[in-house]
């Protein structure tokens, strides 16, 4: 596997306009900075895990990369070409190279379409001239790959369990043989025993087809299991970016440390004797984020400098980047 750079994201910013009570038409809308200057690099064959708590902007980041949410500023270089500068038609051509898997397996499938139609849709969209026999063969092929029986092709989504629906979603993402798949919380709606099946399937497929994955989840144990590199997001900012072992073994940012300590380990001996690092308080309002470092309001290490200056994402060790004034 060659590790060429596949995607380079530079200073990506996304904001939403929020309306509040008493707003008039002419009132200037408040801004919610969902993604605030994120930069990273993705090499082919890698799995980049994105973790963070609800509202940290992880899903928005993924959608901004593929222009499903308009970005304010920044560049997304896809093999050197800026995706954000493309118009709708040009972008559509690149969509076949980047596919997506969604959180709610049943809701991500159109209830009025058969499994066969759902899986074939990307093919029909990008190669409308494909013959019927060809489509059927490709669909059957990809269904086999994700562990679905080919004879279920005329069934409807509601006839399947959550795990099977997620396999259908994966099949749909695979049929065009994409280079990158963005998985947005693909297993968080599934039962534990089904979760493992889907994760193993994704990892096997990645190996077999040489896929690159962006894997978004709030469950750090799953992200660590599947990813080679992990990005920790807090209120739209990257606080730490490193290899997955390094994140777990040597977390440098106070937030990452607390996050890791909060993840329960299914072993009473470890769990009951653990020194829990509790984060005090609640997430600050995203409309009115703290000045300087966004985590400072809940950070034990916080000093004056944290409220005055926003810490940059800096290299702390080889391929380990942290955004904290006090990383040693």
């Amino acid at each position: 596997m060659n590790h060429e750079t596949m995607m380079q994201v530079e200073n990506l910013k996304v904001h939403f306009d929020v309306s509040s009570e008493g707003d008039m038409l002419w009132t200037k809308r408040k801004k919610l900075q969902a993604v605030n200057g994120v930069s990273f690099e993705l090499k082919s064959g890698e799995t980049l895990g994105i973790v963070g708590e609800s509202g940290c902007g992880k899903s928005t980041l993924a959608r901004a990369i593929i222009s499903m949410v308009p970005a304010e500023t920044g560049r997304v270089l896809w093999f050197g070409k800026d995706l954000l500068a493309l118009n709708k038609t040009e972008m559509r051509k690149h969509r076949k190279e980047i596919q997506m898997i969604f959180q709610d397996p049943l809701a991500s499938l159109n209830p009025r379409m058969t499994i066969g139609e759902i899986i074939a849709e990307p093919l029909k969209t990008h190669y409308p001239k494909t013959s019927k026999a060809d489509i059927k063969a490709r669909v059957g092929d990809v269904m086999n790959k994700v562990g679905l029986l080919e004879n279920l092709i005329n069934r409807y989504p509601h006839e399947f369990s959550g795990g099977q629906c997620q396999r259908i979603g994966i099949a749909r993402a695979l049929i065009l043989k994409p280079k990158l798949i963005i998985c947005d919380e693909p297993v968080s709606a599934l039962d534990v025993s089904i979760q493992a099946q889907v994760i193993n399937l994704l990892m096997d497929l990645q190996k077999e087809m040489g896929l690159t994955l962006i894997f978004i989840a709030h469950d750090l144990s799953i992200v660590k299991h599947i990813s080679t590199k992990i990005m920790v997001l807090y209120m739209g900012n990257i606080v730490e970016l490193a290899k997955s072992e390094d994140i777990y073994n040597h977390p440098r940012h106070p937030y990452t440390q607390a996050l890791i300590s909060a993840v329960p380990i299914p072993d009473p001996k470890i769990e009951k004797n653990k020194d829990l690092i509790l984060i005090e308080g609640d997430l600050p309002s995203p409309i009115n984020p703290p000045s300087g470092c966004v985590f400072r309001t809940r950070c034990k290490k916080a000093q004056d400098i944290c409220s005055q200056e926003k810490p940059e994402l800096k290299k702390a060790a080889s391929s380990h980047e942290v955004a904290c004034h006090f990383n040693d």
Partner: protein
Amino acid sequence: MSLLEVNNLQVQFETTDGIVSAVNNVSFSLEEGKILAIVGESGSGKSQTVFAMMGLLDQNGHATGSVKFEDQEILNLSISELNLIRSEKIAIIFQDPMTSLNPYMKVSAQMAEVLIHHKGLSKTDAIKQSISMLDAVQIPDARNLIRMYPHEFSGGMRQRVMIAMSLLCHPKLLIADEPTTALDVTVQAQIMHLLSDIQKEFGTSIILITHDLGVVAGNSDETLVMYGGQVMEIATTELIYASPTHPYTQGLMSAVPRLDDNAVKLKTIQGNPPDAMLDPVGCPFSPRCKFSKDICSTHTPELLETGENKHFRACHVAFKELL
């Protein structure tokens, strides 16, 4: 004497497509001041078990068996009798606190109402006690925040309010149905920490219903594993994690990715969840079980004690054969 004793609890639902058995022959007991975790996947019957105990089943549901709370039979009591027990002795908190908080009433009014109604306190006393209870669940600035509406709190705070409310009458038993599933891990850690503090401070027994094996490990004394409406295994939490004796428990434990583990591949349980429509013949796990024998699909295994202290399992296959 145990605080709670459940014997042969059976829950059935009448539907247009026939009768569905949600819970079959569930028996367990809970000592005072202990935390029992009920673990299972969706459709395992873990929530229906406690709903039946509390008389919270849907209209078409029907429970048989026996549930004794402080030696009093509480299964299928009349609504008025149940209400008394539910408000003063057993409290329940749900995954989504908004389902049990009235969005149009201030938190202060809702909390005071409970105390005025059940303890006959005056309004000022009731508010005073409510504030001290909010303090106890570590809500900062409770004196002011109590005057807010439920939707003005964040998810974690709301769950704290709910816990505070359920503790107002100092219940003997607190049932927590997936209390942290909707919350972030860091908030989950806070809430679980709070629950164990409460258990220590008030001596409340807790039944913790969850699908998260990690949460169970750190926060329970005993663990009950359910699958397809039946109890698969019961033991002290330490024992069940150290040496799970049921194939399902074993499968479940190895299917969870662990943060402190570098396994390259997860072990999976093949197949899909069971069909609640089919009459439970034999062991519900047998279609997915690696060790399944002929007898497994014809006879339901009984919950028997294995050699060790208070370790029960329901499996036809001897423990030795599983290794």
